[in-house]
């Protein structure tokens, strides 16, 4: 594998899903570190830059929409507000179980969402995304 990212973040309330997705990413060998958050709040905490003005955000984020408390949409809203504090912009891939056309439409209208994909994550999907966003 040519390119390896520094960090990928998985956000999903289902721990089994996170485990499976982490397995796929490890098998694809696309990142040095894979972070896991089970709620949007947890994810936002991971994204904080304690003590520094600017820090690196994960290059790639896989985001579930339907989560307890803050949803994936809420996460994107919060992320937008704090975007300036990162030295890079994350590629956000929405990963969801139900392919709801309304969700798809909403995602396509958000500049922050790069991709809208259906679960489960596969090696092919990861390879495609890597080629599309991280080759140059």
């Amino acid at each position, binding site marked *: 594998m040519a390119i390896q990212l520094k960090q990928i973040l998985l956000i999903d309330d289902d*721990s*089994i899903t996170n*485990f499976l997705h982490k397995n796929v990413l490890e098998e694809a060998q696309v990142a040095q570190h894979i972070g896991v958050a*089970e709620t949007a709040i947890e994810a936002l905490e991971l994204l904080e830059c304690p003590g520094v003005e600017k820090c690196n955000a994960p290059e790639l984020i896989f985001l579930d929409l339907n989560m*307890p*408390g803050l949803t994936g949409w809420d996460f994107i809203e919060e992320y937008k507000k704090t975007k300036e504090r990162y030295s890079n912009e994350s590629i956000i891939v929405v990963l969801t179980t139900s392919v709801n056309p309304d969700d798809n439409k909403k995602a396509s209208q958000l500049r922050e969402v790069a991709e809208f994909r259906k679960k489960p994550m596969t090696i092919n999907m990861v390879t495609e995304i890597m080629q599309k966003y991280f080759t140059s």
Partner: protein
Amino acid sequence: MKWWLAYKKLVENNTFRSAQYEMRALSFWRDKLFTNIILYLLPISFLALLPGIVMSFIGQIPLLALFDVMAVLCFAFITLHPTLSLYARKVILVICLYLLSIILLIYLGSFGPGLLYLLALTIFISLIFPIKFAFWSVAGNLVICILFSLLIQFSLIDASIIQHYTLGSWIAVSSNLVILSAVIVASIHLLFNGLQTTIVKEFSLQNQLKEESQALERMLQKMEAKNAELEQFAYIASHDLQEPLATILSVVALLDKQYKEKLDVNALRYLGFLSQASSRMQALITGLLEYSRIGKETELELVDCNQLLHQVLTECAEQIKENNAAISSDFLPTFYAYRAELKLLFENLLSNALKFRKSELSPQITVKATEEQDKYLFLVRDNGIGIEKKFIQKIFIIFQQLHAKSKYAGIGIGLAQCKKIAELHGGKIWVDSIPKQGSTFYFTISKDFTSYGNTIKANTAH
């Protein structure tokens, strides 16, 4: 009696045979009236025929007797002829009566009912014909009176009327007739116009009502179909979806039991995942089914909420003890309600109050109820972790949770059930909460509903 009914039916068949009435407006009543008139005219004229003939022979006017007979024959013709049109019947009757009144005038003069007949004819015409014919009838009366003036003035015939009147007295008498008939026609015209407007308005209102009720009926049918569909869905959820899931769970259990020694740590972990996910799915499906069944196949009964709460507390005694919780309640009301559902409502609110407690503080839960004009207002207050404002709308939606599954167990159905149960009782549910201090859940039970319960009870008792 039997004969009379048969005769009546025959006459009505003759006159109404081909008539089509969109609504029971004036035209209908005109024809109905005409039918009624000719119905009685024939037998009555038969009865009057004999004295009429006798009197005309005594008065030595055989022509009058002849005319009497002809008139009765004419009545019989228009009453009994099977195919004659209604309009023709009316015209013939009117002509016949005009001739009768003229003849009566000529031969009997002011002793006879001639002028009275003319007036009656005008009224009769304005009743059975459209009103313009009645104005023609007034004009006809005028013409007849003028013709008689000429007869009298120039003594053109040798009849009783010439002996009775001078031109002056005739004009005095006949002008009364003309004016009276004009006034009557104008009055009837006014009255009928008003009636017609009312009838048309009522008819269109009725039509509108009919259309609206039809639309409502269609909507109801649609709703019923949708409901049936939902029930079918619930059945599928309960049976068809549960079955393969149960199989998965049994196979996982079998693998775990028979291959525990042979499988490595990872394999056992995956088995754990499998069992975890299938169990959750089973819980979700069961929850969905229970949710859809709320309010079905249950009957209203008189529920003492004190007793109901006591029952709930007894059933959760262990949970309460574990949490070292203190629960206080006021005197609660008694009303008609769905007992099982109301119990579920209390159970869910109490178990939430216990579940979402602060770790450092024993739960203190208060249950209260107040009676308002049209409803009972309940509250369940806790000193737990509270809910952030932005999530308050979300908590009553089915399967929506605020906390990670690992932190608080459950599938997110309790408050959705509570909402459906409150609505089932014509009420609402809402929450006031301060994060980290506690929540107060309110719900209402409509009194309309509980008294409606009484009427249902009364109806089913019959």
